[in-house]
């Protein structure tokens, strides 16, 4: 058991040491953080071996919150799904740690950065290893916190601080639903432990729940509420707005948190709760549609952006949409598979972008780059491999996972066909914008200033080595899941099957070939278009933008989602707070009453005070009048 406990505990220890002694440690922070993460990685590999040998662990460490019938533990569930996540998290985390040694080298907050990274790794591991919902929620919020801290790492920049805050608050909207989902699960099943939930959820089928006079299907409601959490964390529409802004953080953070691990927690959660989701067709349809529309929507935005990190960020949103789509069509295994491959190539893309930014002195505008290929070959080649992978060029990791999702979507009835079509379109778009970066940034002539050109250089080894290692993953990660149609055995899906089950396949191998062919065509078409637009005829994009000015504007401004939220949520609540509540309710009504009663009494007293003229005889009048009254009363009383 100890080896499992140590997986999250090592990073936690590293965090504690680094944060408590940050002053003393300073530049040596990585000496503590790196071995810890490496240790976690090795233990994860050990866990993988154990699981492959059939050791599934589901054990409580201690009771966390106990109250009446409510009981939540800190405990670990180590099964196939967990192990996959463990490998992804620890391996990427390790590489990012190494990368950061070089990337953050000159930063004042070196120790702080590493402590946050360690804390994040710990939280993420707690999340994936959890055996109950509440611990999952703990990890869920803790990774959100780390994300907040790391996005706002350069807190002196207002935009960074804003972005961190935005990420946290937008996520809280999702978590709100997630928390309600947890509550609803407890209320209807009496437990928050996975085992109890999965064994008991079947009995809830057909039950409805009455809320405010409306009847809801209980399972659908639970599934949708849980999905809310995923929407927030995995940046699905309409809560995707925080992820592009999160790029204000240091690039290693973007790679680790906002590409490879944290944002995929939503997908992980849906996959983990597949027994619940599969019981509700409505929920599944919603999940699939949200995923598909997010992927399409984000891909279109990515087409026109110029900030290299933002493009990759939208691409992340889009790819996450893919994974969610996969879950929505019941292909949980495929979703996790894509999660797995995506982690490598997307982390690579980000780290490559970081390397580029390193050379460009922090400039992120791809229009100002060009011809970087000859200055930084290692970065270029790894970046190219990652782009090929994400575009879905056959043989690369992205191809296999994406293809599996499309194929399984195709199998999922009429709705599946639509989703598949949209997915294929997204594949083309993805290829296009990925290669847009390649052609604009690495090919052609350098478009920046001479001074900048002089500064261009390849990044140090500590940066390029993680890139190369990740490139290996980006190319080969898919090979463990080669589908049967290509003569493979799809080991990955088989491995996960005990947790997430098999997807039903109804269509024939011929159709599968057709699907594959179409997706390859889409990928190559996208790359070709990018080549045409940005290498052969560089003026074409401008002409297009001019022709479809409105569309271009819409995409450039990201469909004005941020502005809409600002108008319907942020400003009204600030207005309500500052005007309605402070001035009217608190100021006028409540304080009006509170201060009004005493001031009424005071006004009355002021009037009454006039009676106290100070003239002796006026008081005497009162006395005599009183005497008269008393006499009268006595007289009347006596004479009666």
């Amino acid at each position, binding site marked *: 058991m100890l080896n499992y406990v140590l997986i999250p505990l090592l990073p936690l220890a590293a965090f504690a040491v680094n944060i408590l002694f940050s002053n003393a440690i300073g530049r040596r922070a990585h000496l503590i953080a790196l071995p810890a993460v490496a240790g976690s990685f090795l233990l994860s590999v050990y866990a993988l071996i154990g699981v492959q040998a059939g050791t599934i662990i589901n054990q409580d460490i201690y009771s966390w919150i106990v109250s009446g019938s409510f009981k939540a533990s800190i405990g670990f569930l180590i099964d196939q799904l967990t192990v996959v996540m463990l490998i992804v998290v620890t391996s990427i985390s390790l590489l990012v740690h190494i990368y950061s040694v070089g990337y953050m080298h000159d930063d004042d907050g070196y120790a702080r950065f590493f402590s946050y990274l360690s804390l994040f790794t710990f939280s993420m591991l707690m999340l994936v290893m959890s055996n109950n919902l509440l611990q999952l929620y703990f990890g869920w919020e803790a990774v959100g916190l780390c994300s907040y801290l790391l996005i706002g790492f350069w807190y002196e920049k207002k935009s960074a601080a804003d972005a961190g805050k935005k990420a946290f608050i937008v996520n809280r909207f999702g978590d709100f639903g997630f928390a309600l989902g947890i509550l609803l699960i407890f209320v209807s099943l009496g437990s928050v432990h996975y085992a109890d939930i999965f064994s008991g959820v079947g009995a809830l089928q057909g039950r409805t729940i009455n809320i405010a006079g409306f009847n809801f299907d209980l399972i659908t409601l639970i599934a949708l509420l849980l999905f809310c959490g995923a929407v927030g964390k995995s940046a699905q529409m309409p809560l995707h707005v925080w992820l592009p802004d999160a790029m204000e953080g240091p690039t290693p953070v973007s790679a680790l948190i906002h590409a490879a691990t944290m944002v995929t927690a939503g997908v992980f959660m849906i996959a983990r709760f597949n027994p619940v989701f599969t019981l509700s067709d409505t929920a599944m349809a919603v999940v699939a549609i949200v995923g598909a529309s997010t992927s399409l929507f984000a891909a279109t935005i990515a087409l026109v952006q110029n900030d290299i990190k933002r493009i990759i960020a939208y691409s992340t949103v889009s790819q996450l949409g893919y994974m969610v789509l996969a879950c929505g069509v019941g292909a949980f295994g495929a979703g996790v598979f894509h999660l797995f491959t995506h982690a490598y190539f997307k982390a690579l893309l980000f780290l490559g972008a970081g390397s580029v930014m390193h050379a460009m002195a922090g400039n992120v505008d791809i229009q100002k780059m060009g011809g970087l290929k000859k200055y930084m070959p290692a970065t270029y080649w790894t970046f190219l491999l990652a782009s090929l992978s994400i575009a879905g060029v056959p043989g690369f990791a992205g191809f296999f996972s994406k293809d599996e999702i499309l194929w399984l979507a195709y199998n999922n009835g009429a709705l599946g066909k639509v989703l598949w079509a949209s997915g294929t379109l997204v594949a083309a778009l993805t290829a296009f914008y990925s290669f847009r970066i390649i052609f604009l940034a690495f090919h052609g002539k350098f478009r920046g200033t001479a001074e900048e050109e002089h500064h261009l250089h390849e990044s140090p080894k500590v940066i390029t080595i993680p890139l190369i290692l990740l490139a290996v993953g980006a190319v080969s990660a898919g090979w463990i899941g080669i589908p049967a149609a290509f003569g493979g055995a799809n080991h990955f899906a088989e491995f996960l099957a005990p947790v997430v089950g098999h997807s039903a396949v109804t269509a024939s191998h011929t159709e599968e070939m057709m699907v594959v062919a179409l997706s390859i065509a889409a990928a190559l078409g996208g790359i070709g278009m990018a080549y045409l637009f940005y290498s052969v005829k560089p003026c074409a994009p401008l002409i297009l933008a001019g022709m479809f000015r409105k569309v271009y504007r819409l995409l450039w401004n990201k469909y004005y989602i941020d502005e809409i939220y600002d108008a319907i949520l942020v400003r009204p609540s600030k207005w309500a707070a500052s005007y309605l509540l402070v001035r009217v309710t608190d100021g006028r009504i409540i304080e009006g009453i509170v201060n009004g009663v005493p001031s009424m009494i005071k006004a009355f007293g002021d009037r009454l005070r*006039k*009676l*106290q003229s*100070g003239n*002796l*005889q006026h008081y005497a009048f009162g006395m*005599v009048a009183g005497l008269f009254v008393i006499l009268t009363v006595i007289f009347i009383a006596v004479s009666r």
Partner: protein
Amino acid sequence: MVPLSWYICLSAVIFGIGGIGFLVRRNVLIMLMSVELMLNSVNISLIAFSHYLQDLKGQVLVFFVITVAAAEAAIGLAILVALARNKSVLHTDEITEMKG
């Protein structure tokens, strides 16, 4: 024989006049005299009762009333002197320090 009620009525009238004097005069001195007037009116009725009820208690009480009246006059006049010395006014409507 003069009926008892006549004495009481007389006492009441003098009492009332004393009261009026106290209420309407501005001069503190006259007000003090009005108080004496009222005390005397009470004495009249007390003695009248004493006579008609054939009991000396009423007269004993009158004795005490006179004592108090003397004390009151002494103190009252002393205050009056102090007042006249400090404020050089003797008119009640000019002494309104206690105005609220």
